[in-house]
């Protein structure tokens, strides 16, 4: 039930006053965005149309306090489909800006820069799909330096910058390098014997969280884990770290599989393309050194392709086949 006494007719104007929020007025509530939304495919409680509608009629308190406004990953899959050309993720951002102003905090972590290490190289500012990072003057050890700074309202926690920063100056809770390494090696998996005689090739799979549609699917894949398979999930395949891939290969994995979203389905705009680009270059490096490009592979899991991961893993294992070892 909507009580008119709880409506704030000024809210529409408030959102529209924030850059990006101007177009809220034009929403017809047609629902095309909801039908397209990539997040909604995984979490039906998220409905961008409804959020825009509620904001438009002034349900200020309900909108600002809701958990949904933080769920949009600003992938912009809906933007080109909207008949009114509303940049929905920008409207969401405007709403979140007001929420932050009102004292609500983003429920999830965002990327953090260690100013004692950052060189201001600007690798991360180019890497972030959202432009959430800028270099700003900061006094460190008595000297003014240009240090990277993350806007927590724009950061979608994809982890791409964490992988990209070449000096290890950015961290993001739950997907720090050390945490990924712990998950890779838990139970001594990394120290395991590389493809024991007559045994199965050992595969480490880095899997984008969005390529699994449901908890049940995750549970199935997790249950498959044994000495020949280790699964480590990533927020996005763009978070894949070439150094961790090489480390896995050097420490006893025969192959590394990176699983990302299908073309046009990335939740972080271009994250999956960066993942593919890294894997493609890494494969040329492995080929050029005679180690063999078959040791690393990128596969895409399209949103409608369900339960396909076991087959993709088996396929890679077959391709690795018997020990394809190289010597000096």
């Amino acid at each position: 039930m909507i009580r008119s006494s709880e409506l704030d007719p000024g809210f529409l104007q408030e959102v529209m006053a924030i850059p990006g929020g101007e177009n809220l007025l034009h929403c017809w509530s047609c629902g095309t965005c909801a039908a397209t939304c990539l997040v909604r495919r995984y979490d039906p409680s998220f409905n961008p149309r409804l959020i825009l509608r509620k904001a438009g009629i002034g349900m200020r308190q309900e909108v600002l306090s809701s958990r949904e406004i933080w769920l949009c990953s600003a992938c912009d899959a809906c933007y080109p489909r909207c008949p009114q050309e509303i940049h929905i993720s920008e409207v969401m951002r405007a709403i979140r800006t007001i929420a932050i102003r009102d004292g609500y905090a983003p429920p999830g972590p965002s990327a953090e820069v260690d100013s004692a290490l950052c060189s201001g190289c600007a690798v991360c500012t180019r890497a972030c799909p959202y432009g959430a990072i800028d270099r700003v003057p900061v006094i460190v050890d008595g000297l003014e330096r240009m240090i990277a700074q993350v806007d927590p309202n724009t950061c979608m926690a994809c982890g791409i910058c964490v992988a990209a920063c070449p000096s290890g100056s950015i961290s993001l809770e739950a997907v720090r390098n050390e945490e990924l390494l712990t998950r890779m090696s838990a139970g001594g998996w990394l120290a395991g014997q590389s493809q024991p005689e007559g045994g199965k090739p050992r595969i480490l799979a880095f899997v984008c969280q969005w390529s699994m549609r449901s908890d049940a699917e995750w549970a199935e894949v997790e249950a498959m884990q044994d000495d020949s398979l280790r699964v480590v999930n990533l927020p996005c395949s763009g978070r894949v770290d070439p150094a961790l891939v090489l480390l896995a290969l050097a420490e006893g994995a025969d192959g590394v599989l990176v699983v990302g979203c299908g073309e046009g389905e990335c939740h972080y705009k271009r994250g999956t393309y960066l993942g593919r680009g890294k894997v493609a270059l890494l494969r040329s490096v492995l080929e050029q050194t005679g180690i063999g490009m078959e040791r690393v592979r990128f596969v895409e899991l399209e949103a409608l392709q369900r339960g396909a991961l076991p087959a993709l893993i088996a396929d890679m294992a077959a391709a690795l086949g018997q020990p394809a070892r190289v010597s000096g």
Partner: protein
Amino acid sequence: MEKLKLAVYWASSCGGCDISLVELGEHLLELARVADIVFWPCAMDFKYADVEAMPDGHIDVTLFNGAIRTDEDAHIAHLLRAKSRVLIAYGSCATEGCIPALANIKGADHALARAAFGEPTTDNPGGTMFQGRYAMPEGVLTLPVLGTQVRTLSQVVPVQYSIPGCPPSHEQVWQALNAVIEGRLPEPGGLLGVDARTVCDQCPRVREGKIRVERFLRPHEVIPDPERCLLEQGLVCAGPATHAGCGALCVKAGMPCRGCYGAPDGILDQGAELLDAIVAGMAGESDEEIRRVVSTIVDPVGTFYRFSLAASLLHGLKTSPLESGATCETQRIPGGREGDVA
């Protein structure tokens, strides 16, 4: 006060590291006041027998430049380790393999064949190949034997410190030598002669920050803008993934950093970090577009691992598990002896 005993050696190197010591200029005179040079084959006449005759631990500090490529390199590394209290890997070759280690991509056989037959400047109509051993009327001549892989000094013997750089900057070297002279050396195990952070920190070039590269260029293909970040102009600049220390020498001279000061602190694999940094700065909103930009990178190993191949994770991948730990197969040269490349 007794004078310090200092030694300098060159293994598989170009000689640039020795030149960087000569670049100390007048500081060499100050050095001569407090230190005796007991071994420096590039600059003065010493014989290996002179070193063999020294008691163990006789030399206070040895600056060892050059990678370990031959059995001779390995032998002298062991010898100098025994005779020196402090052994310092000096320069990129000794620290991380450097240019000589790029031969590991195709192996020692290929390198030898290329040197004997493949170089445009080689005139070898008789097809003469290097021989490890050759009998002359005056006696038998021998050449050092190549190992299958070029290695870093610390992969052969324990070292206390490394001074990176190809070659190390002489200002940094002088500071490091002062630390030696004044007994101010830090805890063993780290780098000497470097600054905090990466080359970008010392680079004066302006970074716009959001420019993504559509096509990578090699230095000979472009005259870069003198003020702007070279990476943003499409040149693969290793500055973001390279330890600071040189004062951003190359980038100030208009050349992209090639990465000779090695990985930043705590970074496992310089090449992998650079690769990621380069992809992250690529333009492209689709698989096809990114692949197109990726394909403009020529020679990925030589680009990302130009200096650090022997110290990289790839090195372990190429040598393990067949050649684990300290042993490695020796390269047989026709008619040659088997070396003791450890």
